[in-house]
């Protein structure tokens, strides 16, 4: 059969333009008139529409949740920005509580018990009179002043951090922002569930396939045994039959 040809001017470009609905009105009319008469163009157009329809099935996988691309997010914000405000407040309260208890830090040293550090969470140790006079302590432990300085510094830092955290947690947040964060969390949760479902689906598919293979293998094996047995029986029956026939002769 001779290959069909179409000499429509600039045919390829017109087909593509028409296919993507990006063609001037006069050109459209002209081409539509043409395809009523040209089977080759009509068929090709239909096929290319089919290709486009098939291409629509190719979807890119979702980016994993929590993998935000923003360089600004990574530089200037934290993961906690996507946490609901109530959770942020709760976390801040918890940190405040811990900080407050730690702020009662008490560092003691005596010769009998050595270094003793207590916090607000610890049981209060009964205050005992120093076994050695302060002057003697100071001379016996020259690092005591350093320790006291450290204690003071720690307290200062914790106080500063607590204040900063309190300020952060009480920053007012708009309803829109709050809803957005809740939506992000919900989306991530939904995405997680979808992934879980998909993973289970894949596992199920694998299990079903493995079971099918196993069943088929058993079936083939059983059929093989049956065929061997049947062939053996047939052969022996033929042998008996031929013996009987020959004996009758």
């Amino acid at each position, binding site marked *: 059969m001779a290959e069909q040809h179409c000499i429509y001017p600039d045919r*390829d*470009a017109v*087909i*593509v*333009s028409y*296919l*993507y609905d*990006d063609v001037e009105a006069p050109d459209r009319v002209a081409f539509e008139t043409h395809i009523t008469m040209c089977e080759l163009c009509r068929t090709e157009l239909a*096929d*290319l529409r*089919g*290709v*486009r329809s*098939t*291409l629509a*099935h*190719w*979807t*890119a*996988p*979702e*980016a*994993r949740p929590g*993998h*935000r*691309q*923003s*360089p*600004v*997010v990574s*530089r*200037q*914000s934290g993961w906690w920005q996507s946490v609901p405000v109530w959770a942020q407040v709760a976390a801040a309260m918890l940190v405040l509580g811990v900080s407050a208890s730690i702020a009662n830090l008490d560092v003691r040293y005596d010769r009998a018990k050595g270094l003793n550090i207590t916090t607000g969470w610890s049981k209060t140790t009964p205050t005992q009179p120093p076994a050695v006079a302060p002057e003697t302590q100071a001379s016996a432990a020259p690092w005591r002043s350093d320790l006291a300085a450290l204690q003071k510094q720690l307290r200062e830092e914790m106080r500063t951090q607590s204040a900063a955290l309190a300020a952060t947690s009480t920053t007012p947040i708009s309803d829109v922002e709050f809803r957005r964060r809740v939506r992000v969390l919900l989306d991530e949760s939904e995405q997680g569930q*979808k*992934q879980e*479902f*998909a*993973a289970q*689906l*894949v596992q199920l*598919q694998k299990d079903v396939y493995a079971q099918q293979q196993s069943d088929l293998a058993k079936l083939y094996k059983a059929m093989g045994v049956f065929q061997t047995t049947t062939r053996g029986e047939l052969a022996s029956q033929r042998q008996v039959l031929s013996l009987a026939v020959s004996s009758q002769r």
Partner: protein
Amino acid sequence: MTWSDEELVTRSIGGDAESFNQLVLRWERPIYALAYRVIGREEDARDVCQETFLRAFRALGGFRGQAKFSSWLYRIALNLCRDWVRRQRRTPVVQVPEDVDVLELAAAREPVEPIENLLERRDLTRAVERAMAKLPEEQRMAIILKEYHGLTFQEIADLAGCPLSTVKTRLYQGLAVLRRELGKRE
């Protein structure tokens, strides 16, 4: 209030970090999808996507608004994809891990789609991936930009740096190959 891309760019240049975050949220999915379809590997596509926004952020001051922000972003992403392909020195592997397409299928609108349909769609997806992998780079990019990102012929021509007629030819030739390749499975 919804800002346009260009307004968000202006605000970002002015130091408003949240505006750039908005741009990222708006465009990360299309850029990732573009990178994934060109590269065919999730992890690398993610890296390209991240690098795209990083470069855009660094070069934001140089964006003068001659083109749309999206075109500018696509250009950065495509250049990175090309670099990746050259670095790999091989035809892009348009092959996804076993479970990836099923993840997509599981995310379908119908919550209880029969498994036969899921498998059929998975086969179709793989057929498209295989067929796309056979296209030369220029044809594949033209089809990806037109088919999945809805760019105009002129926008693709600007991105590819070629005449508009060349874009149409690439599209036609690419679609013809896909027609032949996809026809084999029927």
